[in-house]
């Protein structure tokens, strides 16, 4: 089965051949069919590049280092990755001159764990047919509704429009408006449910979720906003690197601080939840900050506008006092 559209492959090959770029950052196959991994390609091995419904990772963070190397690299960015890429550009982390952004289309990515729960295993091929996905497996062909196997982050898709690009692989598909998705508007629904619980119920919910944390740091390492060279959690003197999985506040602290450090810069790309090996819904922490920022300081989508000031590095004299948290209705 062809695993990459001819459009993307031929555009990349043309860019490499006419000397615009030297490398391409894309995906290659891993051990299993669904096991795709980010990789850098040159002219010689470009045929190994794949892009299909399993290529979910947000590659933006790689360009911090890749753009500092010699020569130009082609970045294959899905619409939601362009928000993170923009945010990193805004923070002067990426050298724009060394990156050629090729916008690629995305129709939602498939979570192989969700497919396994539906009994779809031994996958050897996948294709989308309308709202259905058809898997080829070693046990024969199986199909299911696409929304049942989408990643959490694709359930609240920001839209199909690229925020930044030098070229698009398919210009006909590019929509006019950025955010036009009903699910995106409903992304705070679960948070509102939590807010209507009592504090003790909320506490039990979070302790239940976060006590599963094994402190593998995957959420931190994958996060495109989390790009400090030295992280507070890497400081051995701080005592936060120890892995005590006792019933205490340590895991909560790690996750509060992790989310706080990207507050106002988090584009809600959902990578933290996608990579968590313990399936902790970490996006609920980041989204809470986004919700608060939207409510208190005005609607803000990180990465959408490269010129706009960021909510935590700006202020107004009329900002609400912190006591508003205890006074307002929503939270019980």
């Amino acid at each position, binding site marked *: 089965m062809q695993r990459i559209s001819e459009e993307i492959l031929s555009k990349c090959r043309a860019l490499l051949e006419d000397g615009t770029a030297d490398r391409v950052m894309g995906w290659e196959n891993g051990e299993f069919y669904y096991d795709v991994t980010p990789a850098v390609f040159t002219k010689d091995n470009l045929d190994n590049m794949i892009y299909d419904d399993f290529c979910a990772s947000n590659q933006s963070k790689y360009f911090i280092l890749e753009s500092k190397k010699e020569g130009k690299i082609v970045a294959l960015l899905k619409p939601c990755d362009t928000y993170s890429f923009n945010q990193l550009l805004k923070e002067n982390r990426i050298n724009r001159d060394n990156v050629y952004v090729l916008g690629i289309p995305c129709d939602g990515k498939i979570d192989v764990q969700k497919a396994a729960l539906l009994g779809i295993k031994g996958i050897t091929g996948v294709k989308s047919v309308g709202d259905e996905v058809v898997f080829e497996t070693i046990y024969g062909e199986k199909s299911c509704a696409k929304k049942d196997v989408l990643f959490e982050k694709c359930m609240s898709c920001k839209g199909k429009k690229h925020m930044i690009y030098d070229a698009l692989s398919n210009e006909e598909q590019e929509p006019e408006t950025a955010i036009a998705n009903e699910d995106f508007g409903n992304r705070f629904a679960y*948070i509102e449910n*939590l*807010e209507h619980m009592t*504090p*003790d*119920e*909320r*506490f*039990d*919910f*979070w302790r239940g979720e976060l006590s599963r944390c094994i402190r593998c740091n995957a959420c931190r390492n994958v996060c495109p906003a989390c790009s400090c060279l030295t992280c*507070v959690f890497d400081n051995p003197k701080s005592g936060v690197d120890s892995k*005590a999985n*006792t*019933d*205490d*506040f*340590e895991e*909560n*602290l790690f996750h*509060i*601080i992790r*989310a*706080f450090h990207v*507050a106002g810069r988090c584009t809600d790309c959902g990578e933290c939840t996608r990579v968590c090996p313990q399936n902790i819904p970490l996006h609920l*922490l980041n989204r*809470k*900050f986004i919700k*608060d*920022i939207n409510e*208190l*300081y005005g609607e803000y989508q990180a990465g959408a506008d490269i010129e706009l000031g960021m*909510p*935590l*590095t700006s*202020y*107004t*004299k009329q*900002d*609400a*006092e*912190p*006591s*508003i*948290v*205890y006074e307002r209705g929503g*939270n019980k």
Partner: protein
Amino acid sequence: MQINENNKEFKPLIVAFCCNWCSYAGADLAGSSRLSYPANVKVIRVPCSCRVNPMFILRAFQRGADGVIIAGCHPGDCHYTSGNYFARRRMTLLFSMLDYMGIEKGRTRVEWISAAEGAKFSATMNEFVETIHNLGPNKKLEDLRCKE
């Protein structure tokens, strides 16, 4: 924190981060004006209220504090022009997150106390200790490894 086993009475431990330019001086004024505030309040001097990292607050709780109060200059009076405006946004978000995590309301507070407001410092601290006393010991945020 060692809860006094002998008299079984809960004595809250309060950490107060006080801005060097106003609230710390306010505390001084409270002292020299012979206004009393509870001895449970441990004052930590910071150069500005925006120096207070969210980690400081969570750490204080982990290590046994029952309440944390951040006292800074009134908005508009910051020695560094705008520090307290940034602190105000950060602390609002952090307090909201703590609330979202299910921590009792009122364990954290921000107050604006100027160098001339010794009486306000004393009154605020008395009131805050009273609030924390009513909330009881901090169980949710403590870290067992940090217990002596």
